[in-house]
């Protein structure tokens, strides 16, 4: 078998099996629709709360954390520079 025909066979195999799997999935997914949903389960429909809650907490924490981090870094840098410049001034004053 030439390289091209071998690759063609492989690709055909992959495509066929993917389609088979997809059809199987669809068949499986269609099954719950046949079942009757009990009333208690209907309360869970609509938007669920946990992703919203997590997103809210996550945003708050992230915003505050980023701000504190940036603040900390700037403070370190400025105080470092200030110490340097003060040292230079002191050296010059001694001369």
């Amino acid at each position, binding site marked *: 078998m030439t390289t091209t025909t071998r690759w063609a066979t492989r690709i055909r195999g992959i495509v066929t099996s993917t389609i088979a799997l997809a059809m199987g999935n669809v068949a499986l997914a269609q099954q719950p629709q046949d079942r009757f949903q009990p009333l208690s389960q209907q309360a869970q429909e609509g*938007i669920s*709360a*946990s992703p*919203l*809650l997590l*997103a*809210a*907490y996550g*945003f*708050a924490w992230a*915003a*505050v954390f980023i*701000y*504190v981090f940036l*603040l900390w870094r*700037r*403070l370190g840098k*400025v*105080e470092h*520079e*200030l110490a340097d*410049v*003060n040292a*230079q*001034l002191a050296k*010059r004053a001694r001369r």
Partner: protein
Amino acid sequence: MRTARWLVPASLAVALLMFFRAPYLINAAPEESTMGAVQKIFYFHVPSAIVAMLSAIVSGIASAMYLRGRRPMADHVALAAAELVVLFGAVVLATGPLWARKAWGLWWVWEARLVITLIMWMLFVAYLLLRRFGGPGSDVLSSAVSLVGAVLVPFVYWSVNMWRTMHPTTSVVPSLQPEMMKPFLWSLAAFLAFYLALLLTRVRLEKSRAALEQAFLALED
């Protein structure tokens, strides 16, 4: 203004301890009857709003003092407080819609409290932009801006009572049950302690920056 050096680490420590305990308390709090679990956003949405409004008032008072006496420390506090309004205001404006999506079915509604809060936030963003891009003299000008922002705060607070809205009214907090009141107060105290730590640190940064500028000028002589 001589602040005790222990105040920053102390308030920071208090805040962190409280924040570690807070999730347990919030989790233990009962779920609200109509809104369910998503109502728990309340425990830091409202404290953030309180801190943002408090910071706006602090910035306004500091600005008024700066306009009066031109003391640099007043300006530092005004700027630091303005930044924190933007930070905590962003938290409020982000967590609110996330809660609203579940509770009201909408992300946003064009009504009194939301709009005026957004405006107050925008105003302090404008304050920061003015400081950044206004050039010399912008410290005095921005004081007027933050004064106006501070004056808007009472309107934010009472707008919800004046105008029938979807947003819960201010009577919700005083009438909380003890099981909800405790985590709320805990969370509020944590936020306030944290705010204090942040404000003091930011003021210190501003003071050091001003000192650095002075030192550079002295060096050039």
